[in-house]
């Protein structure tokens, strides 16, 4: 055992009774801070993962926009399935009710394989559409009902009424993400080509990547293979503002929860300052024997870690345990009609654990350093005369 460790252990033991209260508070504070941060981050991760999987379930992992053939893309490694599409702002109408929507014409044969969302009914065939549940609710429609669909931008200029196509609702989907359930209407490519008269071909192809295949490397391979006229975007690129908002939310959570650490750090600094005052003479003796300033700092820092570090480790372990138990047994329920899952999702990534460890250790280090700095620089003769 190195001597600084030995001295800090003995100093801690001898001062435990005097600074029991503030020492305990700093320990509990660090523990609560670690626990709260781990639980909050894991819940955020859980919901983020849910949102990400829903987004990917709706849009795929990558989107190639522009004139490109399906065969050209399908040859590449790592692709699970591709979905060619045409997309246009259009209108759905039921009597006097009109709603501006995104008409998305897709290869209906692949629809159930590509899209990963609950669908009541079936995929659309010719003259059929699949609409979101919010839109169905607004229009008061259900599976089997009919609506009018048209694309104003594709109508030729001139006099007369805009031609409208009557289509049957073959299915109603529910994603519960952003405004997708209110905005999107799926139809077949056959109907799309008829409706979007001004379009010369596909708008692009959505790609779902094989599990565990690196999306970035496929994106790179696509960029190498395809011409510069096409755009390749990941689902993160397509939802940049949402992804950024989630990152900000995560940062905000970390900053706010760090305040718990800050309060615990104040307690720790107070406890260590109290010990420092009690140990001035002993520090003077050590310095007279040749102990350098850095060693005195190390002793105080070790005392800080000895107190608050135990709390931090306990909070850390409890947080991980709660996450594991929740994932295993689903102790905390959430309404499944809103989230499509029964229990609160909790996911922990290694980087979050490192973040919590880093922040808790940083606060302990800072509090101990500040508390020990003055003590380490005390003049030896003054320290030796302390209490005389």
């Amino acid at each position, binding site marked *: 055992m190195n001597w600084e460790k030995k001295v800090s252990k003995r100093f801690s033991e001898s001062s435990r009774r005097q600074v029991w209260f503030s020492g305990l508070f700093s320990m509990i504070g660090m523990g609560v801070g670690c626990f709260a941060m781990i639980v909050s981050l894991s819940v955020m991760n859980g919901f983020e993962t849910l949102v990400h999987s829903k987004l990917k379930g709706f849009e795929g992992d990558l989107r190639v926009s522009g004139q490109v053939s399906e065969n050209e893309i399908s040859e590449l490694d790592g692709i699970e399935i591709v979905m060619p599409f045409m997309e246009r702002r259009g209108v759905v109408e039921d009597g006097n009710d009109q709603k501006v929507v995104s008409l998305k014409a897709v290869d209906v044969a692949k629809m159930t394989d590509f899209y990963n969302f609950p669908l009541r009914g079936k995929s659309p065939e010719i003259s059929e559409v699949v609409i979101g549940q919010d839109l169905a609710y607004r229009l008061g429609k259900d599976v089997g009902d009919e609506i009018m669909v048209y694309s104003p931008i594709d109508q030729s200029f001139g006099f007369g009424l805009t031609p409208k196509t009557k289509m049957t609702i073959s299915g109603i989907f529910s994603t519960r993400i952003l405004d997708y359930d209110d905005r999107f209407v799926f139809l077949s490519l056959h109907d799309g080509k008829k409706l979007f008269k001004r379009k010369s071909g596909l708008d692009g192809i959505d790609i779902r990547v094989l599990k565990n295949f690196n999306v970035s490397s496929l994106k790179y391979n696509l960029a190498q293979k395809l011409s510069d006229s096409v755009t390749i975007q990941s689902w993160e690129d397509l939802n940049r503002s949402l992804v950024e908002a989630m990152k900000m939310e995560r940062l905000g959570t970390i900053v706010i929860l760090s305040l718990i650490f800050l309060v615990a750090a104040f307690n720790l600094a107070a406890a260590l300052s109290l010990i420092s005052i009690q140990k001035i003479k002993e520090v*003077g003796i*050590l310095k007279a024997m*040749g102990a350098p300033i850095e060693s005195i700092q190390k002793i105080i820092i070790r005392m800080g870690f000895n107190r608050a570090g135990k709390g931090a480790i306990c909070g850390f372990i409890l947080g991980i345990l709660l996450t594991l138990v929740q994932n295993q047994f689903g102790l905390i329920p959430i309404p499944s009609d809103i989230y499509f899952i029964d229990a609160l999702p909790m996911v922990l990534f290694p980087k979050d654990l490192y973040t919590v460890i880093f922040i808790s250790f940083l606060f302990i280090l800072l509090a101990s350093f500040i508390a020990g700095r003055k003590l380490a620089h005390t003049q030896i003769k003054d320290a030796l005369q302390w209490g005389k």
Partner: protein
Amino acid sequence: MGEIILQAKNIDKSFSNGKTKLSVLKDFSLDVDVGQIITIMGQSGSGKTTALNILGTLDQADAGELSINGKQVHDMNETELSTIRNRDIGFVFQFHHLLPEFSAIENILMPTWINGADDRRDRALDLIEKMGLSERKDHFPSQLSGGERSRVAVARALMNKPKLVLADEPTGNLDEKNANKLIDLLGKINKDFHQAIVLTTHNPKIARIGHKQFFLENGSLSEKA
């Protein structure tokens, strides 16, 4: 003349208390040879402790030069001063200043721990035996008598085999019997280990052990004829 282990030249030291300035040491000069015992006698408040603090680098002089083992103290940074205090100087204080959290043997070992040297428990046991404290090695300072604590402090000062031992009124807190015992011990150490000792005291009887005896009066040092 032997090899000089400590040389103080024209040291001045004063303390300021608001408007008044109290001069404690004036033109204080002292040479200490290897193996020499120097005693400095003076009344309480004459500046003996201040002088020893400066000679031991525990305090800084306002003016003058100090060299220990041939090295100028003035040019050293805090780390180098710590090394000097650990390797070249052993301190024995009036109030023993043992660490209450550590046993006698641990107190003695502390300078070697700080030094980062290998475990030198054998030397510590040897020293504690020489001090007649073998039975008390695992006792804590609070379990030792005043005389025993002083002897532990002496053993601690000798642990790193320093060339210079500075003893600030080591007998000040002891009864006559224990004081004589400690002084005999210091004399024996000087003979056995050939360490230079600078000892301050206000007791003329104790001052007699010095190869050279000095008086400190009004901040000035003068050698006894």
